[in-house]
């Protein structure tokens, strides 16, 4: 009987981690779905962002960007400051369709998705970092750890995901499912950037970070996005996400 008990115990030792793993795998997906719900809950958003770029020597540069976003795949951004970039606009549409408007040339130009690896307006955020995204549609999740306050998910790109990153590690606030921190890894597995969301607040029923900081570990440059103003669900028309509006 003792043997039987010990056998059961050993079997249990073998199977329980597997059961936990399955539960965690399922939970990971559920957690990521909840993250998407929180990030993309608003039908539309209109915000003004102040951007501060500080390089490793402490030199500072400031930017101001006006952003319109609708759903999880339409975004229009217009640079307000600095003067040499004023009026430059970016329009992201479903299917990786990106347009840029250059006021100096009076022309809307179609740009290919290779630009997603580029820095957005000279910041440490790339176009990919800035675009609205549904993580669960592009990334596979695995629960690495959890404690009383956070879930830690490891995200790996799904096949059709052309991300510049080889993986992400996302630290999620258990209270509201808003990501507190995202570590970005290159294709070789080296951590290259850390994004930290600070001062998360609930505004008009939606969670949003008042500040987001991106630290580029390769250059030690740091970019901080500060939310100057935000409006949710103001009924943004689809007409805003057009070349016509981009030139306005």
């Amino acid at each position, binding site marked *: 009987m003792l043997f039987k008990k010990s056998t059961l115990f050993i079997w249990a030792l073998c199977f329980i981690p597997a059961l936990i793993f399955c539960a965690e795998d399922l939970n990971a997906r559920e957690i990521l779905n909840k993250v998407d719900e929180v990030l993309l809950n608003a039908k539309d958003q209109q915000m003004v962002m102040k951007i501060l*770029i500080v*390089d490793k020597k402490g030199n500072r*540069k*400031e930017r101001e960007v006006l952003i319109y976003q609708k759903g999880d795949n339409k975004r229009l951004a217009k640079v307000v400051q*600095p*003067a*040499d970039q*004023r009026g430059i606009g970016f329009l992201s549409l479903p*299917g*990786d*369709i990106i347009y840029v408007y250059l006021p100096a*040339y*009076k*022309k809307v*130009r*179609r*740009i*290919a*998705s*290779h*630009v997603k*690896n*580029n*820095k957005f307006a*000279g910041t440490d955020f790339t176009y990919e970092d800035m675009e609205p995204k549904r993580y669960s549609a592009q990334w596979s999740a695995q629960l690495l750890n959890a404690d009383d306050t956070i879930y830690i998910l490891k995200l790996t790109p799904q096949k059709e995901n*052309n991300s*510049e990153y080889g993986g992400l590690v996302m630290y999620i606030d258990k209270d509201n499912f808003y990501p507190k921190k995202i570590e970005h890894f290159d294709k070789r597995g080296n951590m290259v950037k850390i994004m930290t969301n600070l001062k998360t607040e609930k505004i008009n029923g939606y969670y949003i970070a008042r500040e987001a900081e991106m630290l580029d570990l390769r*250059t030690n*440059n740091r970019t901080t996005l500060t939310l100057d103003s935000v409006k949710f669900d103001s009924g943004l028309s689809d007409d805003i996400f*057009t*070349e*016509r509006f981009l030139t*306005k």
Partner: protein
Amino acid sequence: MRSIILLTLIIIPGFVLGQSLELGGYLQTDDRVFLKEDLDLSWQDYMVSLQAQASPSDNVNFFSEIWLRSHGFSTINTTSDLEDKGKITPIKMELREAYVDIRGLLISSLDLKIGRQRIAWGAADKFNPTDNLNPDDLEDIWNFGRHLGSNSIKLSYYPGKFTIEGVFVPVFTPAVLPSGQWQKIFTPQFSMPPGIVIDNIYDSIDLPEISLKQSPIYGLKLSKNFFGFDLSMSYVYGRDDLPIPNLTVLQPAGDSGKFDIYTRLIYPKLQIFGADLAGEIKGFGIWAEAGLFFPEQINMLIDLSAIGMGQIDSVVLEDKPYFKYVLGSDYTFRNGIYLNCQYVHGFINERGNEALKDYLMFGMEWKLFSEKLKLMPANLGVEIGDYKKLKDNYAIIYSPQITYYPFDNTEISFGARLIDGKNTTTFGKAKDNDEAFVQVKFSF
């Protein structure tokens, strides 16, 4: 008087529209020197661009841009010229644009833009065979693709996913040609009968009559996104903005035994059917743009009666269509290197199937040190006049450049333009014009 009118265009909207007025612009200096023994200065242009924008309501937007330029060098010849500031320090003022853009006029999907404006058509990069509404501004030959603004009316209609643009430019305006040492690249070569010595060359230009029958330009464009590719088709009825001779007369130059040549030039009527495409394949940006040009036939009368050879009537421009096109692609690598490549068939000044040459353009940009430095080490252009006689029909332009951004809104660029080639080609004619340049730009 002209200055007052132009400045009023900036100031009036401020009074009328109060707080919604935004002012901006930039200062740009551009000094160039020929890389020859004497290091002659080839170009000096110190310019302030003043831009004003006002939006009194969501649907109405005003924009104007004025260039104030200290361009060129003193042109004094006599002591009396020293009383003329215009000759001592040439200052130019230019109204680049001044328009009102009204969105949702009568119906929500109709926009009207009226005033002096730039209407840039075409998907290619700087070389646009479908960009024919505004006159070419070739004053600075290195600034390909620059155009003047045109006093015009543009209607844009957005039915569903289509965009339809209609443009009316009431009065034809000719292109600005390159000045000084660069003039020769657009000047056709000609040879005279043996023993004829030319003293002077005169010319006159006949502008089309300013009437709704003779001088307007019309344009129509239809655009849509199909399967992820942006496509458009366009039509322009107007005139070639570069003149062509239709009369040449050889005249004795007094009793010197030499001869003068008089040439009259006109601007031929032209119709252009255009199409362009832009999109991406496997992450590479791709574009194609083409214009099918239908010119009117131009005959030139060559009057050699002065040397007993009578008159010769010849066709200098056939009314046969010719086809200019551009194919291009670009890509940005993960390390920030940007590559851009274009194949161009037919340069701005070329017309008629036999005259169209091929150009291969290659550009590379590399942003370094947190985008404080931009290197352009491999900007290269190759002109091919005739593949069968390549040795005698080519030109190469190499234009490396470095731009430094020490602070926001400030950029300092320096570089060179080195040309080699044969006189049979457009750029080969300027092979002695190698130059270096320094440019500074400050935006405000």
